[in-house]
């Protein structure tokens, strides 16, 4: 078996100094996807941010290559005054990857390529944020509610995208309430609430 892209053992993470999750263990091999489930405020975003390296690990161990990560947060990171293609070309250039046109076509944004991103609908902006994944060239996708404001056809498009990515040796960690129809393992983090003395503040501190 190949080396895992991500290995979490007994990971504790906190947000704003308040413990949010305890004892998360997860191994993600190439070709695998895991859907993180849990009610609002249960720590899905915190888990993804910790894996992305935006927050420190409070306890436990995390093994992954920091340069293998492509993160799509809640916010799309789309610049309204740049065109769709310019937005994507910037990220492609930063990651040293070609294929802006292919990425736009993969998310059915080809027709909108020269439009200013501020004129896009919420779903189109989300698709643009997802298209960014394709121009990072990175194997480990961390997706925070990727299907937010996507219509059914786009959700299918997204599912195909993830399947292609997995088939080419990538992996994905997806926080989602919606089942995008992927053959993925489910990690339910609702049971991993911290039990320590500070735990009761966890919900308030999440936002």
């Amino acid at each position: 078996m190949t080396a895992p892209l991500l290995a979490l053992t007994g990971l504790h993470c906190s947000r704003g100094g308040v413990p949010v999750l305890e004892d998360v263990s997860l191994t993600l091999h190439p070709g695998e996807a895991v859907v993180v489930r849990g009610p609002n405020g249960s720590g899905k975003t915190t888990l993804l941010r910790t894996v992305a390296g935006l927050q420190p690990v409070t306890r436990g161990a995390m093994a992954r290559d920091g340069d293998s990560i492509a993160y799509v947060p809640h916010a799309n990171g789309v610049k309204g005054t740049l065109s769709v293609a310019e937005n994507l070309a910037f990220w492609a250039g930063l990651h040293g990857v070609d294929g802006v046109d292919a990425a736009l076509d993969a998310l059915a944004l080809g027709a909108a390529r020269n439009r200013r991103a501020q004129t896009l609908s919420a779903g189109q902006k989300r698709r643009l944020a997802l298209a960014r994944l394709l121009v990072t060239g990175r194997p480990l996708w961390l997706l925070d509610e990727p299907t937010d404001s996507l219509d059914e056809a786009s959700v299918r498009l997204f599912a195909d995208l993830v399947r292609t990515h997995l088939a080419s040796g990538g992996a994905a960690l997806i926080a989602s309430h919606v089942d995008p129809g992927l053959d993925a393992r489910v990690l339910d983090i609702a049971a991993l609430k911290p039990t320590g003395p500070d735990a009761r503040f966890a919900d308030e501190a999440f936002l």
Partner: protein
Amino acid sequence: MIRLVLRDLRLAVRAGGGFGLALAFFLIACVLVPFSVGPESGRLASIAPGMLWVGALLACLLSLDRIFATDFEDGSLELLATAPLPLEALALSKSAAHWLTTGLPLSLAAPVLALLLNLPSAAYGSLVLSLLIGTPALSMIGTFGASLTVGLKRGGLLLSLLVLPLYVPTLIFGSEAVSRAAAGQGIATPLLLLALITLGSLAVLPFACAVALRGNLR
């Protein structure tokens, strides 16, 4: 890094008046001075070096809080933090973009405004030179302040308070160089000290910015 600078420049131009804001402020400040202190040319000439430098400094300060704020609000900053670009390089690129949209146009426009303030013509060269040497320090120190206050609502006030004391040495040596030139004295010493501040902040502050950004992204 170049790509990030180019993107920021393009954003500044597209947003309308990226270059204009600081310039307009500088213009207004310098135009108002003769009205407030009177048109007497001797008096104007004696305060011109100081006024020009104060005007340029305040114009720089004006756009500091936008350095990271827009990227923070739309989520780009998190994406940049996970991109292959180290945060130190990010901070350096951001301050370079800030300088290109404020410091550089201010330096080039300064002689025109110096005319309004009746600065002796012998000092024009050293005015541009001192601004060109000094304003990169203003942008770099400002970027440091912006990375400390990123994510704070209404962080602009705190940012100004943090940054202004750090701007004082640049202001002192910058206006000193112009005054000396106006009085026909040598300007090598203040310009060297100005260059020292700029090079020192360019060498040290990107690392401080990166630490501050990492803390604020948590």
